[in-house]
């Protein structure tokens, strides 16, 4: 039997069953709290000082030429960055999922790690690698002279780093779809005498378009809100984007700073809404449900292309992982910044100091690991019913809700943090508990920020699910919750794990949200690294960053051990 494709059917919800109703109400409250309230609070702040006069903060922001320059630049760098992320993520995805490449688990494992290395480190390592002090270029005597111009200080440099940072987002979103493609699709196409290239263009890419678009949207939104990379590479070039412009407002001494910042964030929010409409439009045209059975997954034989491809992957990984990681390790082993690493200068004092000192290191590790785990877990649990309910909604309503969920992720973390301070600085009404100054507020902010990260792959997987599989369970007498757990969860499990994993990886060294929300005893790893770095203790900061990479690599290996007990395909780096 050749699996055929059917255009997905829309279920326009029949009269709702009570389980569904309660679920909907609960999730409605949750989205309202996590996504809508913070965004609205910012909107209120943006509009707070609006008077008829032309000097209100909002009017000033809208009138300023720099706002529009920053908007244009943001669009350019994020757009180009997304393109790079899609090329990298898809390239890795197709090669490691669909071919008989050797050591596939290792490649995937390594491809997850660049997300863990602070982008500043990657940028700095490249600057050093191709700069006047480059050990490699100096060996060949082709190093540029001291103080020559750096091509990385440019819009394209920013886009390149943004692309590398968000490539794993695209990769994970795509992978869940790729492993669901049955082998007979490929066989059918081969019988039709299609070349592997044609199969890829005509069959695989169209079927994965929804997932690629979802991943690209994540990459775009995450690039839009990124501050660290444009701050590092854009400021020297005098190149502003919206997040750096926002930071400029904060650094000013003005008292209407908050409304200006809020106004700028609303512009980002508008940009996101426009992006979401585009995403909806693209995905609407590519909704195919795969008929409800998967045989073996697709696998191409590479033959003579295998070695060159493996080499290419290795070179790319060298640039995005090995070089920065090496630079990071080197800078953590010297006594002071800029000293060469030799046998004489080699010291573990930074590690020793960070591990033994104060307990702040231990606390930050505990807090971040706890926050990352719990956020990932809670969001996975929430995404299941949320994705399910969203898929039952009419297209337009779904687009609106999905955009609302997207906004907190898109606005720069520091602005989201402002919204949470504005909301939670006072004790909560009625229950008189103050979340402010506790891990609780960071936790809530993470949920708000990363909900869309977790939801995206889940929605994309659910849209590809043949609806008759659920209908069959309905006829078997299973109520919505039971159907969710017994049928939909196992069939979309790789997407859930991908979503949870993304949230974990992003939040483990998250900085910008927690930067404003942390308090003594509630440090996160991101805050710890940043504070050390900013205080000039960059050697200590590097030591912590190395420990974080080791921790994440360790946790990922632990997950591999659990893989045999989990559904097929949920651990990306385990076959």
């Amino acid at each position, binding site marked *: 039997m050749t699996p055929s494709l059917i255009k997905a059917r829309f279920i326009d919800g029949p009269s709702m069953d009570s389980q569904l109703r309660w679920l909907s109400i609960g999730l409605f409250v949750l989205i309202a709290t996590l996504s809508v309230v913070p965004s609205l609070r910012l909107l209120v702040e943006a509009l707070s000082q609006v008077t008829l006069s032309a000097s209100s903060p909002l009017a000033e922001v809208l009138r300023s030429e720099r706002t529009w320059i920053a908007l244009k630049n943001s669009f350019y760098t994020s757009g180009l960055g997304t393109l790079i992320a899609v090329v990298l993520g898809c390239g890795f995805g197709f090669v490691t999922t669909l071919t008989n490449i050797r050591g596939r688990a290792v490649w995937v494992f390594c491809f997850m790690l660049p997300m863990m290395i602070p982008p500043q480190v990657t940028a700095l390592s490249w600057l*050093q690698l191709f700069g006047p002090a480059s050990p490699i270029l100096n060996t060949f005597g082709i190093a540029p002279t001291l103080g020559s111009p750096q091509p990385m200080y440019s819009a394209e440099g920013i886009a390149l780093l943004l692309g590398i940072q968000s490539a794993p987002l695209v990769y994970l979103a795509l992978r869940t779809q790729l492993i669901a493609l049955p082998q007979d699709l490929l066989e059918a196409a081969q019988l039709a005498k299609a070349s592997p290239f044609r199969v890829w263009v005509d069959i695989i890419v169209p079927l994965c378009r929804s997932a690629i678009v979802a991943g690209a949207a994540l990459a775009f939104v995450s690039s839009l809100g990124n501050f660290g990379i444009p701050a590092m590479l854009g400021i020297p070039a005098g190149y502003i984007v919206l997040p750096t412009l926002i930071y*400029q407002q904060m650094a000013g*001494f003005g*008292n209407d700073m908050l409304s200006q910042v809020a106004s700028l964030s609303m512009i980002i929010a508008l940009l996101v809404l426009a992006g979401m409409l585009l995403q909806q439009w693209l995905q609407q045209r590519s909704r195919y449900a795969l008929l409800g059975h998967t045989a073996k997954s697709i696998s191409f034989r590479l033959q003579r292309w295998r070695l060159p491809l493996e080499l290419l992957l290795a070179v790319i990984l060298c640039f995005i992982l090995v070089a920065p990681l090496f630079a990071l390790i080197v800078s953590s082993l010297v006594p002071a910044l800029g000293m060469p690493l030799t046998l004489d200068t080699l010291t573990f004092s930074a590690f020793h100091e960070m591990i033994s000192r104060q307990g702040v290191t231990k606390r930050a590790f505990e807090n971040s690991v706890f926050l990352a785990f719990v956020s990932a877990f809670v969001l996975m649990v929430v995404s299941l019913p949320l994705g399910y309910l969203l898929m039952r909604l009419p297209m337009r309503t779904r687009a609106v809700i999905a955009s609302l969920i997207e906004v907190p992720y898109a606005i720069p973390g520091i602005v989201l943090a402002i919204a949470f301070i504005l909301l939670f600085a006072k004790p909560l009404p009625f229950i008189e508990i103050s979340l402010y100054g506790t891990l609780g507020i960071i936790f809530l902010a993470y949920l708000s920020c990363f909900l869309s990260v977790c939801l995206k792959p889940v929605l994309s997987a659910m849209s590809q699910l043949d609806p008759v599989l659920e209908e069959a369970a309905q006829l078997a007498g299973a109520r919505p919750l039971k159907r969710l757990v017994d049928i939909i969860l196992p069939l979309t499990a790789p997407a859930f794990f991908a979503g949870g994993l993304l949230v974990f990886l992003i939040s483990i060294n998250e900085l910008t949200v927690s930067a404003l929300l942390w308090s003594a005893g509630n440090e996160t790893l991101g805050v710890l690294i940043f504070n050390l770095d900013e205080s000039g*203790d960059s050697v200590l900061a590097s030591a912590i960053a190395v420990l974080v990479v080791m921790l994440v690599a360790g946790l990922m290996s632990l997950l591999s051990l659990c893989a045999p007990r989990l559904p097929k395909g949920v651990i990306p780096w385990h076959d």
Partner: protein
Amino acid sequence: MTMKKTLLICAAALAFPLSVQAQDVLTLYTSQPNKDAQMTVDAFEAANPNIKVEWVRDGTTKLMTKLRAELSSGVVKPDVLLIADSVTMESMVSDGYLEAYLSPNRTKYEDSLYSDKGYYYGTKLITTGIVHHKKAPQSPTDWSDFIKPAYKNQVAMPSPLYSGAALIHLATLTDEKTLGWNYYEQLHTNQVKAQGGNGGVLKAVASGTKPYGVIVDFLAIREAAKGSPIEFVFPKTGVSMVTEPVAIMKGAKNKAAAKRFVDFLLSQEGQQLVLEQGYLPARGDIGVPAGFPKREEIRLMPFDAAKTLENNEANKARFSKIFEG
């Protein structure tokens, strides 16, 4: 519904441990580096055993953003502020957020170091000067060196658009007759590159990507002492400075402890601590830390906090016009 409930319980559980408080608690918001902040707090607690300090540390920009957001929602969290510069303090004064307190210890200080009504007091002098890599071909001695052709595209400086201290530096230099705005225009022509902050400049110079830089004194001097291949220079024309002022919040919950904290920082003991941390103490009769020249050899350029606040927007606009044109 159960989801919401679980969340609340979860949140409550997370909030619980900190709702237990003992002793007299003083809340401090500071932009001092972690290690220094810890030292300051430890020393103060040792001197005042019945007061426990809870402190929040962040860069001045982020700290002020956090504080502004809190104030905007009608809550005063900190009792005392200890932040980088007096211009920020001036803006807090003009918005009516600070409490005046005349510390008895102020008599030992120059008038320019504290507000005459007692809203804030400078605690140390953090000057901005010149840093260069040890292998750099030139040895800069003054600000004017950076506009020479030999330095073209080789200098890094913190951007006034992102750092309050750099904005003060800009205000000071543009007010200096021999430099002025003309100097900044020439810096741009000479392709001086602005960085996000002092940390960025330090990295650029130490790693050799830019052999020269504009930077605050203690960062460069401390790192050089640890063995970093860089050297700090106090320029001939003079250095700009920020004073790391301390102030009490209007509406502070624990005003008594806050006053004790201000007095402590201004005391002989407090100033000795500043010296130990490697900063130039604000009080003239305390020595200078290792790596610094004699106090008389450091020329401080004049600077007016209130006027700087007033010109703030115009200065930023003019700078961004030159550098982001």
